[in-house]
């Protein structure tokens, strides 16, 4: 802990010395009396205000948090001796101070202690504000010597970073990938193999498992027949999050919606043992190949957390998406569909034989009202062009739905599933 002279100490000492000198100059005791009083205060303050050696640390700070869910950590202050009233600034970024146990909350990022003996432990409860990156610290402890002559200050050395994940909606209905891969999962494969879903009967062949013999049918045909089954496999789901919107406008909320939906989808598909991959399109085009497990989901979420509104370089994006989203992946594109290049990219995926579906975010609800005839006309032309893009994609058999801001995320997924089912029946 370091002690710096406070403004009052400088004022008392300087004015005190000036008072004594002035008394000598004018030959009157009054200024000397004032000076003596001020100097006495300064001396008493300095003598009683030595800076004790101390330590300040934060314990049990989690590395991840979920938006809206409070989290606790411990602040530990050790002092050799004691100090009076102290204020600890937690240096919270992206977090709101909710409650403090063992101290008094001051403002949105600090707490105060009446006094600190040898050791003080304070439990702090904070709540993440929005998703993204948050941090605690470095902590700063401020205290004053008894008469406030010295400003005592102690700074913690570390900053604890926390990744705040978006609140994930529970999705009841999900689109299932048409093609499955080789890993065990919840999807019923179209192939034959060991599984629980009955497929068909066939005559026994050498090497068949005797447990698969259907004795009832075999007794009727006087030959051995076996049950064939569909194996339960998992699928690959590739999420493409397009965040090409103008930063600093209302359109930025579209990125927020995309990220929230993608996080919910990642969770829901992971729960069903599917492999999840992600491609984020902003200023940089980054991707994570499909994978499984909690560690992999965290990687996906961390990439989602770093999505920023930005201009996409479409040539690079197309190459990256086609490379990352290969068969048998099911690709779910979440896009505001602001750029015709996005439609081109979706076409390229379709041409490559990838099962691609599009959730187009409703942009018009977040746009400010167009003022004036010219703007109104421009807005109408833009809306028609966007509609034409949707029609073109839809005409090529690419399931595409518009997700309105008032609808829960289940709605576009159910619509996509319906769309795909209808298309399959027609086809």
């Amino acid at each position: 802990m370091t002690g710096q002279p406070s403004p009052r100490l400088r004022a008392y000492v300087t004015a005190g010395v000036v008072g004594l000198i002035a008394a000598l100059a004018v030959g009157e005791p009054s200024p000397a009396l004032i000076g003596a009083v001020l100097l006495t205060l300064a001396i008493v303050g300095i003598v009683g205000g030595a800076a004790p050696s101390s330590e300040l640390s934060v314990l049990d700070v989690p590395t991840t948090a979920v938006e809206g869910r409070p989290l606790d950590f411990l602040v530990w202050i050790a002092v050799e001796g004691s100090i009076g009233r102290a204020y600890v600034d937690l240096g919270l970024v992206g977090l709101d101070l909710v409650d403090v146990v063992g101290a008094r909350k001051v403002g949105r990022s600090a707490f105060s202690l009446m006094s600190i003996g040898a050791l003080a432990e304070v439990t702090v409860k904070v709540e993440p504000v929005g998703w993204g990156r948050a941090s605690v610290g470095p902590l700063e402890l401020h205290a004053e010597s008894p008469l406030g002559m010295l400003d005592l200050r102690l700074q913690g050395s570390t900053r604890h970073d926390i990744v705040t994940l978006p609140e994930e909606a529970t999705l009841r209905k999900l689109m299932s990938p048409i093609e499955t891969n080789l890993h065990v999962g919840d999807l019923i494969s179209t192939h034959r193999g060991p599984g629980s879903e009955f497929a068909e009967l066939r005559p026994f062949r050498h090497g068949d498992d005797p447990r698969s013999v259907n004795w009832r049918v075999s007794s009727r045909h006087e030959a051995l027949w076996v049950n064939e089954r569909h194996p339960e496999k998992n699928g690959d789901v590739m999420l493409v999050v397009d965040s090409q919107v103008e930063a600093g406008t209302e359109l930025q909320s579209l990125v927020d919606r995309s990220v929230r939906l993608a996080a919910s989808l990642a969770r829901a598909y992971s729960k069903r043992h599917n492999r999840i991959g992600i491609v984020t399109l902003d200023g940089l085009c980054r991707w994570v190949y499909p994978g499984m497990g909690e560690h992999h989901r965290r990687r996906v979420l961390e990439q989602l957390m770093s999505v920023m509104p930005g201009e996409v370089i479409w040539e690079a994006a197309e190459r990256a998406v086609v490379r990352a989203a290969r068969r048998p992946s099911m690709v779910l594109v979440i896009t505001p569909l602001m750029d015709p290049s996005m439609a081109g990219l979706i076409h390229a995926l379709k041409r490559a034989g990838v099962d691609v579906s599009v959730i187009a975010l409703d942009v018009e609800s977040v746009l400010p009202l167009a003022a004036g005839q010219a703007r109104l006309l421009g807005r109408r032309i833009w809306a028609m062009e966007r509609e034409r893009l949707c029609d073109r994609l839809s005409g090529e058999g690419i399931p595409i739905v518009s997700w309105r801001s008032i609808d829960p995320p289940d709605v576009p997924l159910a619509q996509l599933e319906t769309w795909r089912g209808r298309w399959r029946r027609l086809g």
Partner: protein
Amino acid sequence: MASARLSALAAVAIGVWLAVALPVSQGAGIVTLIGLSGVALLALGLTFGLHGGVTAAAVAFVTRSAVATTMSVEVHPPLWAQVLLIVLMVELASASFALRSRPGDPILIVARGLTTALVAAVLAQVLVLLVEGVEARGTLVSLAGVTAGVLAAGWVTRVWHRSGLSG
């Protein structure tokens, strides 16, 4: 921030009151001028976050008191009240700086400032009574001068050692 502003305003108000406490009609215009200069420096310091403003104001009021004693005017307000107001002004101005840079309890800070000011006023009155009882004015003033020198040197040495610059 609101409490910091209030504290600064109170400090300036005390300064103004102290500066105009001695009526100019008594021929003490220079005294008032020194006091008001101190207030102006204090206000500047508080506005622009310069700690030196507090020091300058305190020095101005001590100088004002010294100049006033040389004139044939009645010392007004009495010495103990001057000390009380100077200390209170410094305390409030310092509290304003403190509240700007870190969180704090304004009530506690003001309470401490008031207590310090009262203690200083009592101490000043005790000293006045002591001085009035002693008829060795020249000796006392010289003694005070020497004490000032010793105390100032002691303080500078102490701050130097505390700052860590002395190695």
